[in-house]
């Protein structure tokens, strides 16, 4: 199939998509043209990921058309999309870690020699040819798990190129890249553009968009907010289009008047992602921490909680300088944390609600190792009931619960622990709306009891509606602090995208 004049390698027309009651995409249309780098922009949750999943056949739209080289398709599978020239490089690469680059690139399509034996030399030759055409050099002799993430990405892209791809979708490829790695990728993207491939590029770094993009489509709340060539945009317009002027905000929490100081972080650094962070949290205060993914928010939280050790800086809790050497110590000091990735870091999936919700209680109530299980059971049941965990039977394995209910179990753990500071890292990610409001209610109750809350979130409406004060992180530093009338989505986004920390307002 060769696209004739006026036909684009891939077009999306009037795409609608809903998950349950939530409309994720509304009438989205988009043309991806040959030889163009098309940037998809939007806040977290604007619908970018859903859109590329539809474009790559992972989801099918509720209505609307995916048009491949002029041919409308009503259903696509990822396999079909790949076979027909749509390559998608997700953030999580689908490489097999213990195989080398050439083996990965030609997996399932190995050149065969006599007796069906794999022709290793030929495979290596073909892999090299593709990499040469990309003008990149990658170590093909080692298992890909031993390579850096950028090299792995190159292999993933090269793998797609062996499929004769005509559309290349790159989902936040630079999120974990260093400057030089990004440079190498950009050179490659330029090569792809020269080969008349339509490139779809997603990134949160605006300067990258302006450097590499030809065309921009901005998504907001599941609709196309604007689209046009790169020349029609500047930094301000892009932020404005992403955030929108008339975003309906949830009611803002009435700001607490004065808060006695509880936590003060001074010049905290881990030598890598966190570079001299200072901020404070008062008693009963909810401090929102905004920032892009990778801006160092989670890492800062982990430093305070003792999950990693700081290189330098000071943590002052209740007027005393503390340096928790591990979370065990942090809990002793009265710090609790609900981690970002609840399956990996929050829950022991092989155990029950009783145990997962009760670890802190078990620790608090046991005398010389003896645990008053009846009391633990009663208290955990009370708390999970209060949080409307369904089902509320304490023996149920947490693996069987929905995301929202799992999160409530992790949260319930800290309700009983007697913490004075609770850090919540993306507490409502992947949580449905009903459970969200229950979680917000708990956060407020905790604050009213005088507990200081650090609320890390990528969800701007959430940050704006739940926080008394907002600190914004960018590239490992505090880019600024917002409160009261000055705390708008535009202001948060402007700080989050700020790259030069010395220009703090």
């Amino acid at each position: 199939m060769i696209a004739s004049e006026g036909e684009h390698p891939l077009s999306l027309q009037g795409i609608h998509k809903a998950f349950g009651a939530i409309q994720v995409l509304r009438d989205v249309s988009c043309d991806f043209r040959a030889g163009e780098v098309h940037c998809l922009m939007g806040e977290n949750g604007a619908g970018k990921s859903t859109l590329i999943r539809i474009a790559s056949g992972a989801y099918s739209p509720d209505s609307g058309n995916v048009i491949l080289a002029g041919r409308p398709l009503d259903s696509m599978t990822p396999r079909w999309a790949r076979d027909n020239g749509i390559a998608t490089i997700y953030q999580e690469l689908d490489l097999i870690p213990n195989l080398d680059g050439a083996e990965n690139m030609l997996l399932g399509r190995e050149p065969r020699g006599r007796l069906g034996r794999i022709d290793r030399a030929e495979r290596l030759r073909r892999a090299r040819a593709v990499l040469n055409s990309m003008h990149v050099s990658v170590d093909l002799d080692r298992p890909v798990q031993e390579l850096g993430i950028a090299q792995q990405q190159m292999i993933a892209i090269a793998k797609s190129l062996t499929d004769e791809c005509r559309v290349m979708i790159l989902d936040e490829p630079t999120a974990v890249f260093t400057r030089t790695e990004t440079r190498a990728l950009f050179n490659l993207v330029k090569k792809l553009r020269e080969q008349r491939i339509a490139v779809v590029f997603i990134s949160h770094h605006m300067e990258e968009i302006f450097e590499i993009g030809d065309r921009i489509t901005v998504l907001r709340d599941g609709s196309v907010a604007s689209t046009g060539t790169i020349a029609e945009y500047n930094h301000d317009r892009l932020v404005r289009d992403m955030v929108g002027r008339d975003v309906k905000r949830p009611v803002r929490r009435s700001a607490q008047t004065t808060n006695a100081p509880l936590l003060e972080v001074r010049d905290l650094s881990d030598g890598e992602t966190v570079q001299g962070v200072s901020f404070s949290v008062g008693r009963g205060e909810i401090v929102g921490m905004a920032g892009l993914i990778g801006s160092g928010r989670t890492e800062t939280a982990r430093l305070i909680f003792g999950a990693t050790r700081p290189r330098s800086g000071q943590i002052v809790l209740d007027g005393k300088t503390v340096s928790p050497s591990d979370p065990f110590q942090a809990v002793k000091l009265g710090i609790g944390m609900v981690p970002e990735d609840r399956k990996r870091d929050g829950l022991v999936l092989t155990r029950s609600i009783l145990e997962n919700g009760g670890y802190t209680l078990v620790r608090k109530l046991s005398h010389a190792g003896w645990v008053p299980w009846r009391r633990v059971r009663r208290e955990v049941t009370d708390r999970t009931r209060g949080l409307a965990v369904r089902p509320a039977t304490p023996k149920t394995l947490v693996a069987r619960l929905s995301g929202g209910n799992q999160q409530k179990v992790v949260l319930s753990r800290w309700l009983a622990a007697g913490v004075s500071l609770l850090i919540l890292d993306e507490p409502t990610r992947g949580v449905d709306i009903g459970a969200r409001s229950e979680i917000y209610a708990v956060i407020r109750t905790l604050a009213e009891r005088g507990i200081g809350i650090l609320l890390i979130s990528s969800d701007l409406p959430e940050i704006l509606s739940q926080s008394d004060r907002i600190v914004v992180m960018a590239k490992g530093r505090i880019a600024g602090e917002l409160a009261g009338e000055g705390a708008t989505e535009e202001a948060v986004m402007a700080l989050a995208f700020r790259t030069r920390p010395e220009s703090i307002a």
Partner: protein
Amino acid sequence: MTPSSSLAEPRRFFTQLIVGSSSEQKNLLRLLAILLAVAVIGAAISGGVLLRPQNLSNILQQNAVLLVVVTAQFLVIVTGGFDLSVGAAVALASVVFVSSLDHGVGLAILAALVSGLLLGLVNGVLVTFVRLPSFVVTLGTMQIGYSLAKVWTGGGTIDAAPGGATIPRQLNSFYSTNLIGLPLPVWVALMVLVLVAIYLRTSTGCFVFAVGGNSRAARLAGISTSRVRLVAYATASLAASVAGLLFSLRVGYGDPQAGVMLPLDSIAAVSIGGVSLTGGRGSLIAGFMGVLIIAMLDNLMNLLGVNVTLQPVVKGVIVILTVFAYGLRRD
């Protein structure tokens, strides 16, 4: 709380003491069914001999050492590790016990237990603080333990302490003495089992499962994962040294090569019991039933006169089949 649930509370407490969550209860029912099937079929083809009280008592007596070692192994497997040094702990305790009899039985027992505890602490420190894989660590301490036991005795078995003391008469008959229908060693084994079951209901015990299930999450819940692991390895070797005492009392001497097959036999029994070898779940009673199933099959094959060299083949097939069957249930 409703009246019915408060009535159910004590019962639930005791079932939970040994049984645990509902999926584990299902597993136990399945094991019970297997056990009954083996018993009934076994009784039929052995002409009822298998289920005679004396024979059942023998089965337990012959497997008291394994039972204690399985209890130890279970504790380590639940943390997500393996303990290959359980056999070495048995051998060490066995030779230390016999050679210390000069100083009195009480002291000899104490010395044997200390030898196990030390071995367990070495395992625990290497796994926890040096962060080495338990399989490799215990493989190493297994060889070191056996070697030390041999150095201790000068190579062979030892049936008396250097001063001439030997296993006293009353201890000699320990293995054959019955108490309420069961031989004393069986009571000792059951005691170890119950103690470890109670231990698993303490705070550290509850954390053992957390560490085995997801040590990252356990750590971020404020659990001191290193302490939990250290205690688990130390307790396991301590329990294994009790098995070493039983071993010496049974054979009447100290053997630096005792229990070479115990690491693997115990892992086999734990797997037959359906305990996840990746850690974080399983119940001790399931491990116990795993031992009973293996023990009954062993006994049955002896009764039927199956060639001794062929018996391990049958055992091996059963281990693989059961683990295969459990694998089918996994998602």
